[in-house]
């Protein structure tokens, strides 16, 4: 800021004013960061919970043709073990259920349509990591906001003293 002719002399050192402004600004940024992180954390938890609620126990199966299925008394050959997956395309399901109540999913259909179903395990793992990260950022944000707030408050008193002293000295 430029001093104009005839204006009263600046009594507060420029770097202190800037320092205080900076501290106040950093406090706001930290508060904002913490708030956004908390909001994202809640959103992630809701999204994860929503995804996980759509996951069901499924068994991928290489299906037999009808005559073979009738002969062998099985819908097809299992591919892998039953696991919780999110399969949104209902056409991928085959009739019947397994011993653990798992639904059969046509592996040929998944391949033909280039579908790689999301696993509940992956959702849980990635969701957990994201939530942990956001909680960490939120914590750092809150701590930083608290620290900058303390600094801001402590800056005010010396600032006032300094102004008085400066005024006295100028006289």
């Amino acid at each position, binding site marked *: 800021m430029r001093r104009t002719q005839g204006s009263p002399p600046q009594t507060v050192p420029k770097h202190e004013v800037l320092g205080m402004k900076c501290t106040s600004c950093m406090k706001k940024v930290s508060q904002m960061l913490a708030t956004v992180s908390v909001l994202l954390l809640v959103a992630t938890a809701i999204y994860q919970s929503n995804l996980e609620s759509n996951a069901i126990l499924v068994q991928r199966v*290489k299906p*037999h043709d009808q*005559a*073979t299925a009738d*002969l*062998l008394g099985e819908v097809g*050959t299992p*591919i892998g073990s039953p696991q919780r997956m999110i399969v949104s395309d209902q056409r991928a399901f085959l009739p019947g259920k397994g011993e653990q109540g798992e639904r059969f999913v046509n592996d040929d259909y998944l391949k033909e349509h280039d579908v790689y179903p999301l696993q509940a*395990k992956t959702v849980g*793992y990635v969701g957990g990591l994201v939530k942990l990260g956001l909680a960490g950022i939120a914590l750092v944000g809150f701590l930083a906001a608290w620290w900058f707030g303390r600094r801001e408050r402590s800056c005010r008193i010396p600032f006032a003293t300094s102004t008085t002293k400066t005024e006295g000295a100028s006289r």
Partner: protein
Amino acid sequence: MKFKTVATLAMLAASFTSALAQKQTFKIGNAGGMKVAQVFTVDSDADFENFTGQTHDVTGSVTFDPSAKTGSGKIVINLASLDTGIALRNEHMRSEMWMDTEKFPNATFETTSVRHLKGDKYEVSGKLTLRGVTRNLKTQVTVRYLKESESTRKAMFMGNVVQIKTEFPIKLAEFGVKIPDMAKGKVADTVKARLTVFAYSG
């Protein structure tokens, strides 16, 4: 006289049984329009995700005696065709660090003994060769024998058919696979192998 008749009948029955109890040779694979798939899978259950590698390229032959409930066999699995559902992961699986399929394209299992347990369950011992390393393996196998009938012909099977099912763990380190740090949590140290094959007598 009565004793002689009983002895003759017993001998006839024994010879009839031994005639039935002939070992049959079955070929693994599809022929003559057989529609069933030969399936070999490996399941990895790691922290991040589960994945299954699968191949339908399984060949070999088995002998099986449905009366004496014994048999033997050799099964060859083409690991180079193992598909995990993601092209990049397939490349990694085939690489030198993992299955090294350029050098060792096949895994083989050859039986050394077969012991009938009960029903259609058998305890099979044999040698599993993977990445050029051979280890002894003992596993429980389910063998379903389907004598040729209208139903088997309708299902396009050729002759008599055996369905062989088994699963066993494979500790990768025992076959020289060292999981790199960057893959830890994504690939399990021990994978579960499952085999379901159909063999026909022709």
